[in-house]
């Protein structure tokens, strides 16, 4: 039997051919894609700023943050988008002086080539796993400022390529959305990523405004753990309620967990339409038989935790929001009250003359 050896240059050429065919398909499909050509978009700077005071088990911290997002459209099908984050977390030390830590990072910096049924992304991007990281993480969007404990179970950022998109499944009553990616390892302290692959698939029913989906991630380094996840989101048409939930389970040391969140906008009550009530319950289960040193290194992912949070959001128009929340965390040997109060502001500004209108 003849053995075949796949040389690297052959593999590269096959990969190039595949990418080329996909781009060609996109180019031909674009003939009847007029939605992006109707309006000539301009570069836009958007993002959010926030200031929050947090009390975690009696320890008070203040944290101003700014997260600018630059959107640079090129032609009819390209979009360059880059989001950074800068925050300063400070608190009073034993001497009564304020001391803080400045942290910064690059959430994503990606180039998107958009066609009718697929978008091809290259660069650094948010890993498509469940819905929190991609859709709900910005502080002007999230209903409760605390990130669910189970979110960091999976690798949240990737450096490589991704194919994603949304399309109706034969009928407009069911939409399919999908994303699949491959990431290389990067050890830069700001841009660190794992070598991993995975994806997400979701089915969205626009009528009842219901989405269910599943995700998978396989890390291709160190002990090569994989993770599976499911998500659910529902906004009933009859009343202003949003229900969301995620479940994540890892085969490695990072355990498993879920959260369920409900947000109710009081728009049916006179003079209370700008107010939103939020509640979230979550459970996290640490991996079995963790060595003490490993559990310590994992931090919140190293100990079983139950947590309940309740919050109140008040919207000053569409861009400014005040938020307050209280939570009770039950962790082994470390129960704590969690208080949060602060404000978020979402900004949007053009970086080029818009030609007016509206």
């Amino acid at each position, binding site marked *: 039997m003849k053995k075949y050896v796949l040389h690297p*240059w052959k593999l590269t*050429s096959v990969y*190039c*051919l595949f990418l*080329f065919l996909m*781009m*060609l398909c996109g*180019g*031909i499909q*674009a*003939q009847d894609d*007029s*939605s*992006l050509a*109707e*309006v*000539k*978009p*301009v*570069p*836009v700077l*958007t993002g959010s700023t926030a200031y929050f005071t947090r009390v975690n088990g009696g320890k008070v911290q203040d944290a101003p943050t700014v997260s600018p997002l630059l*959107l640079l*459209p090129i032609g009819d099908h390209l*979009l360059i*988008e880059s989001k950074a984050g800068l925050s300063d977390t400070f608190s009073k030390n034993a001497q009564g002086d304020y001391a803080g830590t400045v942290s910064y990072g690059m959430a994503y910096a990606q180039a*998107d080539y*958009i066609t*009718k*049924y697929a*978008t091809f*992304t290259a660069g650094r991007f948010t890993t498509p796993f469940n819905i929190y990281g*991609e*859709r709900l993480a910005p502080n002007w969007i999230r209903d409760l400022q605390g990130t669910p404990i189970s979110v960091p179970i999976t690798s949240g950022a990737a450096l490589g390529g991704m194919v*994603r*998109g*949304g*399309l*109706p499944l034969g009928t*407009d009553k069911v*939409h399919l959305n999908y*994303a699949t990616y491959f990431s290389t390892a990067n050890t830069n302290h700001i841009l660190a990523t794992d070598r991993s692959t995975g994806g997400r698939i979701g089915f969205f029913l*626009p009528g009842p*405004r219901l*989405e269910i989906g599943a995700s998978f991630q396989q890390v291709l380094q160190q002990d090569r753990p994989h993770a599976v996840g499911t998500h659910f*989101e529902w*906004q009933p048409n009859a009343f202003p309620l*949003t229900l969301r939930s995620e479940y994540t389970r890892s085969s490695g040391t990072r355990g498993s967990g879920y959260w369920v969140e409900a947000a109710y906008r009081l728009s049916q009550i006179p003079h209370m339409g700008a107010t939103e009530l939020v509640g979230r319950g979550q459970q996290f289960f640490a991996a079995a038989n963790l060595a003490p040193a490993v559990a310590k290194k994992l931090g919140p992912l190293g100990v079983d935790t139950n947590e309940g949070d309740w919050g109140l959001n008040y*919207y000053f128009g*569409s*861009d400014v929001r005040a938020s307050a929340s209280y939570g009770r965390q039950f962790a082994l040997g470390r129960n704590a009250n969690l208080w949060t109060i602060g404000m978020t502001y*979402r900004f*949007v500004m*053009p970086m*080029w003359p*818009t*030609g*007016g*209108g*509206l």
Partner: protein
Amino acid sequence: MKLKSFSAALVMMVVVFALASAKTRDAKDDSAKPAATSQSTQHDQDLRLEGEKRFHSNCSRCHAAPPKFPPRMMGTIVRHMRVRAMLTDDDVRYILRYMTQ
């Protein structure tokens, strides 16, 4: 020799892709010719309602309604959200129309 064949294949692919892109541009130029502009008020109203419905089905799932921006800004924002929220092509068309009128 293998490298030359590979390079020749790549050049051919680029040429074919350029031709396909030119064809796309031609198709767009043809479509840009003056068309009948008289649209009924009822048709506009239907499009607006459909855009509003799709906005509430997709965008309002995650965030409050933003103010309406100039069309060229909204074109960028909707393109960004098409990628992030994995909107369908029809969703983008209706939502962009709704948010710019």
